[in-house]
């Protein structure tokens, strides 16, 4: 009798295993077919990428700008054209103002660097570095001898440059196209924001429409909160770094400060990337702030940013374990390059939203229908 009672459960498990096996086999078959027609796929993927980059950028910008439009409309500033116009002009104005006021300072500092300090750095690398080399002058001599004998740098440049140029043009051209199309896309997207959302929703089968709409809204909320918070943090930490660098008397404080702000978009690694150039500069050129002071300033700034500002601005919904963020940076970075590194955190946050959403749905189903769908008739 007991054996008879257990049979339906065993059948159910077997059915499920067969189902998963069939899905896995089908997936493998699809991958195999895709590999066979890789050229066709690369055309299709290129075409999709051309469309996806500007659309994704428009979506990300919309996530930052749309709450402002909604806020203006709540305050009675409408119709949509007017509120959109105000927010759009404001955004363009801010971007233009940043470029207009910041660029001359950055250009001046870069020019100063090449006229005053660049030669010092070259002299150091070819001369004084030998005495300061951490593995000893003998090893330094051997390395230099090898480099000179094999003409290492020139060979490397000859080999890498054509590839680098073609890769750069491959990235730059679609990016420039995307930037050129972006304002037009953004205007239409923001004007018909609700209509587009409704159309997207209408594509989803009615059975799943409500759930998918909930998931979409959660994703928008999470990614939007991340982007707005990150932008605010970048601006704040960039400004703070510029002032602090100037206060401690670091030359080229503007370039180094902007670097801190820009690289702050990459969690954990950005801090290190931004701290290295001013430390190296203060080691090689010497002068007012020593490398230890520059390092201490960076550590303190990042401590305050990471422990006071970030938890307050990035709400609970974006809290993730550092290990997950680091793994996602490495993974998405290797998949999508620089863009992958920049957007690793919001992608990880989105995956977290997916995970929690489906977990909730499963729990809800279990509550209403029982653990194995016992409520089903």
């Amino acid at each position, binding site marked *: 009798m007991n054996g008879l009672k257990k049979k339906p459960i065993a059948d159910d498990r077997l059915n499920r295993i067969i189902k998963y096996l069939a899905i896995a086999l089908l997936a493998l078959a699809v991958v195999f077919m895709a590999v066979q027609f890789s050229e066709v796929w690369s055309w299709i993927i290129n075409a999709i990428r051309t469309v996806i980059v500007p659309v994704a950028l428009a979506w990300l910008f919309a996530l930052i700008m749309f709450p402002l439009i909604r806020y203006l409309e709540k305050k009675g500033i409408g119709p949509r054209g007017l509120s959109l116009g105000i927010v759009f002009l404001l955004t363009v104005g801010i971007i233009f103002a940043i470029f207009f006021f910041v660029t001359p300072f950055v250009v001046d500092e870069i020019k100063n660097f090449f006229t005053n300090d660049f030669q010092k750095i070259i002299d150091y690398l070819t001369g004084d570095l030998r005495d300061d080399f951490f593995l000893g002058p003998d090893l330094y001599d051997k390395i230099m001898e090898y480099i000179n004998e094999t003409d290492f740098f020139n060979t490397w440049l000859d080999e890498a440059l054509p590839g680098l140029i073609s890769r750069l043009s491959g990235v730059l051209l679609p990016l420039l196209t995307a930037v050129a199309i972006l304002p037009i896309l953004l205007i239409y997207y923001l004007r018909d924001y609700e209509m587009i959302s409704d159309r997207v929703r209408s594509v989803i089968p009615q059975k799943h429409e409500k759930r998918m709409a909930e998931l979409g809204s959660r994703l928008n909320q999470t990614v939007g909160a991340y982007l707005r918070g990150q932008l605010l943090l970048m601006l704040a930490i960039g400004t703070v770094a510029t*002032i602090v660098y*100037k*206060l401690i008397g670091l030359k080229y404080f*503007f370039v180094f400060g902007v670097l801190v702000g820009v690289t702050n978009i990459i969690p954990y690694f950005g801090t290190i990337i931004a701290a290295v150039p001013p430390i190296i500069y203060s080691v090689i050129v010497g002068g007012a702030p020593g490398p230890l002071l520059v390092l201490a300033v960076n550590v303190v700034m990042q401590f305050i940013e990471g422990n*006071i*500002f970030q938890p*307050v601005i990035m709400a*609970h919904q974006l809290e993730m374990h550092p290990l997950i963020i680091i793994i996602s940076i490495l993974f998405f970075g290797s998949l999508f390059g620089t863009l992958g590194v920049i957007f690793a955190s919001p992608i990880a946050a989105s995956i977290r939203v997916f995970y929690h959403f489906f977990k909730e749905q499963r729990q809800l189903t279990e509550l209403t229908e029982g653990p194995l769908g016992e409520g089903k008739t």
Partner: protein
Amino acid sequence: MMQGKKPKIYSEYEIRVILFYATMILALPNVLVLSYIFDFSSVLDIYRFMFWVAMVVLALTIAGTLILWLNRDHYKRRVKASYRGEFIYLLFQSAFGLLGIAVLYDYLGGSRQYIANVMIIVFAAFFYLLYTLGRKYFKFDYMKKR
């Protein structure tokens, strides 16, 4: 029966008063931060600039106090459970204010050797003030582990 002390929820009036006076107190340091980055001192007399900024801030403080007093009843009727956004605003004001105080110290001829000491003391004071204000008025405890 012993009852726990219920936390008081403050109205928008109290929050606006805190934000307004914090903004006004830190207005001069905040303006100085901008002037320091873009090196205003090289194109204009910084003491005269500071004096006029202080005068404008004083005028704004008087006008703002009047506006707040006139709208007192309106804002006292409005209450929120948490003032997160307002606290973030205060946090940024304080961060730049802290730097502005260091810049002010520099402009007033203080020795650069002691800038770090000044900043540490002001930072500690700001941190304590923000922590107390955040917990009591903004219902926002940033030391609390979630």
